[in-house]
């Protein structure tokens, strides 16, 4: 609960690079979450919410028809897509919302890219009677209109961020500005394992349940640990959540899949470990996309949730220490894996999670039929149906525009702007 310079460090990464105004709130949060982590009442309350509200434990599903296209390795999906609100994000948000109530604060803010974290935060805020504001890049509000509607239905105010790259990075900046201004009344429900200490450690701890469950399920259902665990990495929360239970198992490969966008050579990607260098962004020392002057380079991905120039500091440490490997997956590779899972298993994944599936195809080809792979299916693809329909030209752009025009004529206009 101090501002010890080594607190919250993962090797050379992490720390607190924040305005002084936020230090007291970070200390308060760190004290609250440490107390909660050892408080049986808090843990019981959270466990009950996971059981009766989220629907945990999430299933483990073997996907043999998909695996035919992945070197015929055995592949199991950890089904975080079956959680209430459709992704892993709810694990962290319920924990942070309970902490908000314990700290006596009445208002939560959040940033969101694909909308999953925003929907989860709006959900928890509704459940616990908290005011909720979600910041979302204007471009992402257009890509993820359905999730904007969900957040509004849940009672959240969605604020589109209209400057910078108008994506997740700028939504984080805006949420930080709000927090600096309203820190007395407001908790910032940061959505991934980045930001200043204690966020990376705290968010990871709320997501450890993914890996803890999956490890036990693999042992029970297969009788051994997987050869590899694959997870997509934007900020990196689902990946850390599933990796963490296996870090001590040296024979289990940890494979993080970053957004390769249009290809690393194109410059239009979010592959921080392929081309990034260490620096500081959003309160943490980590790997990030930056130019030679330290200015952040805009990222690109077909997936709004992976379109982020930075990555959680614990991933930076796993990368430099060699414990985990990180690979870029292009938009095209991810969408091919997306379609493959739909057609072979009847599961529509989030495009984020499709990056992990594409990675599993690569790793499966390397391991062959004796390989055993665990993939974190971090979210479901409902929110991505329009993006996927455009990608596969199922519904032409003209059809979509025409449909929107019809809707606009039939429905009253929302005067407010809309705004992961």
């Amino acid at each position: 609960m101090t501002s010890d310079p080594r607190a919250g460090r993962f090797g050379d990464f992490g720390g607190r690079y924040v305005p002084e105004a936020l230090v007291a709130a970070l200390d308060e949060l760190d004290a609250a979450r440490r107390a909660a982590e050892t408080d049986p009442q808090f843990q019981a309350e959270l466990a009950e919410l996971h059981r009766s509200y989220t629907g945990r434990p999430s299933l483990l599903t073997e996907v043999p028809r998909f695996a035919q296209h992945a070197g015929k390795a055995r592949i199991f999906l950890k089904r975080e897509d079956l959680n209430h609100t459709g992704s892993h994000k709810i694990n962290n948000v319920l924990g942070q919302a309970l902490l908000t109530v314990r700290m006596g604060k009445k208002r939560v803010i959040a940033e969101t890219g694909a909308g999953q974290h925003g929907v989860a935060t709006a959900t928890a805020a509704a459940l616990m009677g908290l005011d909720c504001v979600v910041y979302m890049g204007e471009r992402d509000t257009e890509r993820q209109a359905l999730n904007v509607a969900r957040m509004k239905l849940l009672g959240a105010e969605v604020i589109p961020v209209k400057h910078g790259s108008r994506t997740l990075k700028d939504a984080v900046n805006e949420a930080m500005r709000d927090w600096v201004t309203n820190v007395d009344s407001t908790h910032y429900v940061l959505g991934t394992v980045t930001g200043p200490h204690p966020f990376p450690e705290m968010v990871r701890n709320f997501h450890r349940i993914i890996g803890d469950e999956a490890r036990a399920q693999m042992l029970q259902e297969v009788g051994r640990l997987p050869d590899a665990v694959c997870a997509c990495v934007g900020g990196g929360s689902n990946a850390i959540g599933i990796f963490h239970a296996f870090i001590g198992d040296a024979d289990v490969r940890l494979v993080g899949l970053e957004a390769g966008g249009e290809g690393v050579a194109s410059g239009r990607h979010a592959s921080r470990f392929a081309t990034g260098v260490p620096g500081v962004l959003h309160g943490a020392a980590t790997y990030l996309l930056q130019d030679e002057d330290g200015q952040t380079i805009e990222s690109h991905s077909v997936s709004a949730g992976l379109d982020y120039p930075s990555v959680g500091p614990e991933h930076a440490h796993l990368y430099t220490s060699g414990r985990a490997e990180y690979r870029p997956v292009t938009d095209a590779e991810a969408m091919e894996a997306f379609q493959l899972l739909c057609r072979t298993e009847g599961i529509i994944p989030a495009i984020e999670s499709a990056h992990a599936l594409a990675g599993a195809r690569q790793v499966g080809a390397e391991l062959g039929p004796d390989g055993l792979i665990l993939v974190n299916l971090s979210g479901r693809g409902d929110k991505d149906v329009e993006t996927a329909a455009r990608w596969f030209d199922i519904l032409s752009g003209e059809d979509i525009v025409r449909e929107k025009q019809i809707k606009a004529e039939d429905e009253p206009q929302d005067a407010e702007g809309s705004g992961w």
Partner: protein
Amino acid sequence: MSRLSEVLSSTREQNRAALVAYLPVGFPSLDRSLEAMRAVVEAGADVVEVGLPYSDPLMDGPVIQHAAQVALAGGVRVAHVFEAVRTVVEAGAACVTMSYWNPILRYGPERFAADLAAAGGSGIITPDLIPEEAGDWLSAAQEHDLDPIFLVAPSSTDARLAMTVQHCRGFVYVASTMGVTGARAQVGSGAADLIERTRAVTDLPLCVGLGVSTGEQAAQVAAYADGVIVGSALVATLKDDEPDSGCEQLRALTAELAAGVRGGRE
């Protein structure tokens, strides 16, 4: 003693607060930003805070965010800061740089400090760097006789105030309100309280920033602070969509603020 400390000693001897004017390099263009820096010195600023535009200025409000975007789109680079520092020093004022940490980290703290000192700069204000994380910068500052200037905020505990001021030289940046940069109708009443709490732990000059935009506000703050920092209000007088304003509005506002700091203790 740095040029900055000399200037702040001098204003103390005159029993008045200093006017610290923030302007970002490269807004509305490089040449016009240099012209603006000369103009504020001529109109009465004692210290100029040269802002290094950054892609993610999370402590800044819309005016300075916009200026940073325009400056970066116009091709401003880190090295231009040193050109601006030279311009200010040649115009006769003390000069400090305000920069988020990553551009300095990428440039190299040691190299940045050497180049800043060579340009005549006195120190650096680091809005997203707290002393606990500032080991590299503190070493470089020591090596090149530069002033590290950290912020204190209304939320700072007494223990943090004491720790932070121990790492400051030149002055302590007292953030008057919780929030980002930008003109406000009223300067937070917390400023005077924070000044009093900070005075209890240091003899360094205390300069108040965040929210001051008028001569009247400057006078109010100058009554109890050693320096009044004005940024967004000055930047707002520079229009990037007008070819050349001649900095007339900037000069007029600076003169009003300069009169304010001189009248604050009368």
